[in-house]
């Protein structure tokens, strides 16, 4: 299916401001960086997690542990014929036990990816709590999942898709809404 870009939701500056704001919110809510860790969901959530972690370091001067989750092996739609998933590496180099973990993804949609990520994360141990940060919440949840930090609420129709483009993966930096053409 081909998609046609319709409108820009965020530009480079907009993304930066949002991530900076989320970094502040995380610190405000959790008081400090003690026992804090951040885990991004591959692919783009991982880059967003790294950026938030670097903003936290800018603000507090403390480096928090960063991890990356590949949720492929936990997906509930593996048997559906929607393109073969490629398994990439999950990297959690710290002990999740008793940590407050900020889980980061680019777009929150049905909530199924988050469900997978929660299952996988908990297989690494028992965190004290898990909080969810997303750049875009586009609605249409199919599971009872709610983000703790939202970059921007973007109401969408089911025919539309939200594309997040980041320097690290796409050589440009913006969020756009596209529609099947």
């Amino acid at each position, binding site marked *: 299916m081909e998609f046609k870009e319709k409108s820009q939701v965020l530009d480079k500056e907009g993304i930066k401001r949002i991530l900076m704001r989320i970094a502040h919110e995380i610190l405000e809510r959790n008081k400090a960086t003690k026992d804090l860790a951040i885990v991004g969901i591959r692919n783009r959530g991982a880059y967003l997690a790294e950026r938030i972690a670097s903003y936290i370091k800018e603000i507090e001067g403390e480096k928090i542990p960063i991890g990356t989750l590949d949720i*492929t092996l936990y997906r509930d739609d593996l048997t559906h*014929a929607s393109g073969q998933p490629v398994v990439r590496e*999950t990297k959690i180099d710290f002990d999740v036990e008793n940590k407050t973990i900020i889980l980061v993804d680019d777009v929150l949609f049905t909530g199924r990816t988050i469900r997978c990520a929660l299952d*996988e994360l908990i297989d690494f141990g028992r965190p004290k709590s898990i909080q969810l940060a997303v750049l875009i919440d586009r609605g249409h949840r199919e599971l009872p999942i709610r983000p703790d930090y939202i970059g921007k609420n973007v109401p969408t129709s089911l025919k539309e898709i939200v594309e997040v483009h980041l320097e690290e993966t796409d050589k440009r930096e913006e969020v756009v809404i596209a529609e099947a053409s």
Partner: protein
Amino acid sequence: MPKQVKWTKKDLLGLEYLSRSEIELILQAAESFKEVITRKIKKVPALRGKTVVNLFYEPSTRTRISFELAAKRLSADVINVEVETSSVKKGETLIDTGRNVEALMIDVIVVRHNCSGAPYMLSKAVKASVVNAGDGWHEHPTQALLDMFTLKSKFGKLEDLKISIIGDIAHSRVARSNIWGLTKFGANVTVCAPEILIPKGIETLGVKVTNDIDEAIREADAINVLRMQFERDESGVFPSKMEYFKKFAITEERLKKAKKEIVVMHPGPINRGVEMSTEVADGPNSVILEQVTNGLAVRMAVLYLITHAEKE
């Protein structure tokens, strides 16, 4: 991003039938599974609800355990069928056994058989995925894949590596699968054995042949030492164990003439003091136990890919 190669095959029958990019796909997936097996909870739900049958018509400890564990790490249910306890003793054919197993809604059959081509025949008869765990003298694809995975993690690549496969080439499915796989990646493969254990025409597979063990070792980046399969010597033409050890065994003395960093592999089980001395098997160049660990990751990758194959 370059377009990802998709896995489209129902079965894994041999490396002869795979393209280089398909092999790369398996090795890449195995990297991720290697991470999974080092976690505290070494299990992922990717094959939850699926069933894997290990159908072994030949004795095997490590391959069977490795496949069983690989399936369990992926949350599949596993059944082991061993020949002594099954109705094969009552004369049931492989195909009948396969179809009966399939009637129980099994998803994957891992088969080891003493006849070359048996997994192929089975794969045509059943809808379930078939994985060749060694057939006669033909192929042992997962062993070669784990050897390649081990080499790749040691050297970062397979291209232009000099690999010598030493030992009973004639009766070795491990050798054949390794030759198919390694030559597809542009490695330089040499086979070395007593004349009688070199199959005629093996050089047509793109390998060099030598009977001189020192020559096989001298330039090699890695050697893959095969087990002398004395049980297959029906006509009594094999050299004696003593004779073989003297002329072909990998010893510390012989390794002095090799590259200092040479990687020593063996698919196991080792006949210590026949094809390899104990000092070498347990020595600093040996990666034999790493091979076993990597085998688990590779078999997880294979089971995952064939059960998630995309329709062509």
